[in-house]
């Protein structure tokens, strides 16, 4: 699945890095707890979150996450979008709620990747 497919499936507004929509996404993670996100290593992942602060982008950067989807119609402020732009992380915003957005992506074949740790609940 590409980032562009995710944008279509979740009817997203693209807020940054529109030129990277063709990049492939292999796994997904939905969480508002960044510590939980950091407990999982996934390749070419997308992060779905309702949290809007700059640490969402920082966390994505550390994890090599290539796309962040803000759920429930939320949009981060310009500084956060700019930071994501500097890090080449695509920012999407969907009106879907977290559960619904994760369900749509799962139903379309996207999976959670490694989740061996019993602690976390990030998926």
């Amino acid at each position, binding site marked *: 699945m590409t980032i562009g497919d995710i944008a279509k499936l979740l009817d997203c507004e693209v807020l940054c890095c529109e030129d990277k929509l063709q990049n492939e996404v292999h796994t997904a993670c939905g969480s508002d*707890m960044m*510590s939980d996100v950091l407990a999982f290593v996934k390749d070419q992942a997308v992060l779905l979150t309702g*949290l809007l*602060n*700059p*640490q969402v982008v920082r*966390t994505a*950067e*550390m994890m090599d996450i290539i796309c962040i989807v803000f759920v429930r119609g939320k949009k981060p402020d310009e500084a956060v979008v700019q930071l994501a732009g500097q890090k080449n992380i695509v920012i999407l915003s969907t009106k879907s709620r977290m559960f619904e957005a994760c369900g749509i992506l799962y139903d379309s074949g996207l999976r959670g990747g490694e989740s061996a740790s019993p602690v976390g609940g990030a998926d």
Partner: protein
Amino acid sequence: MNVLELHYDVPGDDFTRAGEASSAIKNKLKQMGISPDVIRNIAIATYEGEINMVIHANGGTIDVFVGADAITMMLKDTGAGIPDTELAMREGYTTAKEEIRSLGFGAGMGLPNMKKYTDEFELKSEVGVGTQVTMKVYLNK
């Protein structure tokens, strides 16, 4: 002998800037051609430590030593210290306030994650003096 030594001061008064040092370290290691998996482990472990410094200790310092066989990260602060380091290492244990939890941290995963992503991990802390975390990631596994 170390190939490269890096030093960063982490300000403790601005949560929005937390992670800048880890980001700079990640970029530096990328420029050196270190393998992406090794860089990611170092970046995550250092970032968790940097966040802890800002949340709990009003900032601190990060020193990175790049050697031929391993990369060592030394994180030091002069914060309140950790009374029970064994308890602090337990997954899910946290003393973070609700305000920090609302920012997405303080799930009690910081120190366990730092240990999980590194090959060697040492936590030293003294109440009223501060905390020092030394972590090592091997380059040739």
